[in-house]
């Protein structure tokens, strides 16, 4: 099983997200994460979908996505040659006064920002790879994670060569 990042350029029209997700459902594939937003050209949106499957399944889903009329370009990004990040927010429990300082320290170790520091909780915002997010999550567990929200991965492939 491999983890794949699919970058899908679609027409920026209503109903297309539905069609793309419906395709995953009807072909028996799973969406691991999804993020959507407009591109540099407002006529198009980019969907970044991560999925897990064997090579054959991933080839098949790329072909099925490519066949969709609303998709302009479908690319499977080279995971080793792409910048991929996810935005995550944690609401972390503050049980005792020194927790607050420790959470702040942990956050800054991960280049994360803190918001809305209250007596009971702090919101931590970080942009990182899924791996880093999991690592942070493990460490934050000792304080207690009240809520977590993730955006799903977005990614761009690096340029081939410097000329």
């Amino acid at each position: 099983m491999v983890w794949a990042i699919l970058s899908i350029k679609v027409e920026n029209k209503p109903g297309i997200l539905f069609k793309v997700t419906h395709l995953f459902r009807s072909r028996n594939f799973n969406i691991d994460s999804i993020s959507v937003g407009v591109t540099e050209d407002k006529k198009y949106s980019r969907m970044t979908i991560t999925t897990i499957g064997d090579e054959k399944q991933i080839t098949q889903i790329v072909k099925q996505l490519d066949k969709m009329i609303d998709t302009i370009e479908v690319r499977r990004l080279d995971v080793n040659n792409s910048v991929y990040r996810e935005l995550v927010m944690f609401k972390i429990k503050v049980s005792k006064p020194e927790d607050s300082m420790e959470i702040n320290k942990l956050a800054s170790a991960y280049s994360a920002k803190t918001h809305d520091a209250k007596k009971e909780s702090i919101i931590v915002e970080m942009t990182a790879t899924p791996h880093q997010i999991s690592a942070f999550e493990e460490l934050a567990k000792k304080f207690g994670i009240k809520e977590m929200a993730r955006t799903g991965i977005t990614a761009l492939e690096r340029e081939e060569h410097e000329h």
Partner: protein
Amino acid sequence: MNETMIGATALMKALEKEGVKEVFGLPGGANLPMYDELGKSNIRHILVRHEQSAAHMADGFGRVSRKPGVCFATSGPGATNLLTGIATAQADSAPMVAVTGQVPVAMIGKDAFQESDIIGMANPALKYSYQPRTPEEIPTMVKQGFYIAETGRPGPVLLDIPKDVQQNEANIPFPDEVRVPGYHPWTDPDMQNTARAVELLLSAQKPIILAGGGVIISSAFAELQSIAELLMIPVVTTFKGKGAFPENHPLSLGPIGMHGHAEANKLMTEADCVLAIGTRFSDRSVGTFEEFEKNLKIIHMDVDPAEIGKNQTTSVAVVGDVRTSLRIFGKLLMDKAVRPSDDNPWLKHVKETKQYWRENLKLHPGEMGAAKILRKLRELLPKESIVTTEVGQHQMWASLFFDAIHPGTFFSSTGLGTMGWGFPAAIGAKTARPDVPVVDIAGDGSFNMTEHSLATAVLEDLPVIVFLINNYSLGMVAQWQRTFYDRRMVGVDLKKCPDYVKLAESYGAQGIRAQSMDELEKAIKDGLNSDVATVIDIPIDPEEDVLPFVAPGTGLKDMILPS
């Protein structure tokens, strides 16, 4: 060029520009403006009694004419009644444009009377869909819709038009050309891969050709036949590919699959290399995927890149319109091909195997056994006649015992397996080809599902023949219950209801019961000479099974033969 008119007028004008001469449909509240304009146009309306039949008629029309058939339905239940027909067309890659009425734009999402989200419901069964929000969009969407429906791998397109969009007046553009940026229906076949395919096929000791429905869709009959004859390669087909290669040809072995010909299944499993053309390797054709590809090199030609490697691992793939691919393939062959001699061991074996099974397959002993009645039909029916089928035992008997000789004259719901498809599809086929006889080879269970279409056949002067192989039973289910469920028969006995002669007559059609070969011969002739639709009711033994039979989940080599 722009013209000022209401949306419904623009729809009719756009359809006329696409060359539409007839639509199959049924009016209702949300498509009244369309019908008002339809009445004023030159387009013929063929009224159905249920929208599912309209979709099947459009499908039958589309498969025969290779132009999208058009069906109309109102919103809500009218639209949902089309669904089975749309899904059937999608499963068999048939070109279709379905036009539904929708509640007015401002009412969408308000759970209005007869509102259904038909675009959402039909999405996975559609090649594409449109819902214009202004009248100005209609002609462009019609033009794009036809282009999408009929090009590449054909399929159904839905236009869902809100009632106010039909009624409102606007200054409406009619484009002469349209672009669909994300749609690339054809790829040019890769020359290197085609050359590799030629090498591979020529190096095979026991080659076979598997022709699928794609050969029929792209009219690659002549190209296929010349390659088969040049290399003397035996040809099997999928069930959908029946009619891609003349079944009276010495190299023809007939369809493979669950109810394929014994010789076709046998030789398919013995071959070492297959040239598979325009097929998606459905489980019904190949049995279990792993078993099929064992010791077999697969050359796969298809228009749809997503079919390559979906079900089977291929050695070489050639993506592109299969007619174009076969032409290039044929040209490359010319320089290299050596016609095998008559004592070629594989060819000798093929010939012997075919002869053995053609002579020794045990058939039902009764006078009105399936093989006998279908061979009688073949004997009396002109070769260019078009045949459709329903779904069930009769369908598989037709596959086994009714030879399709003229290219592209045999059509069936092979993918979705929709009972009730054959009769309305035959009516649609007759609309496209009024010059040839059209016969629906039917079973009684299937015919029940759309028998109301007798009204359409009679009132619209579309004299098709229903060749009703009647065991008053859901025969295929009954066969499975006899075979796999220890004869525990549940829900399959149709208890001699209705009387099909009276049923036909009540619609003003001709009803004939044929209980002997003499009666059958007369009935077929009467049907062919009739100017009204004919139902030939042919009672058969309800215990007759379809054999050979490849049980689901097994390979072609595990075929069950008549004992």
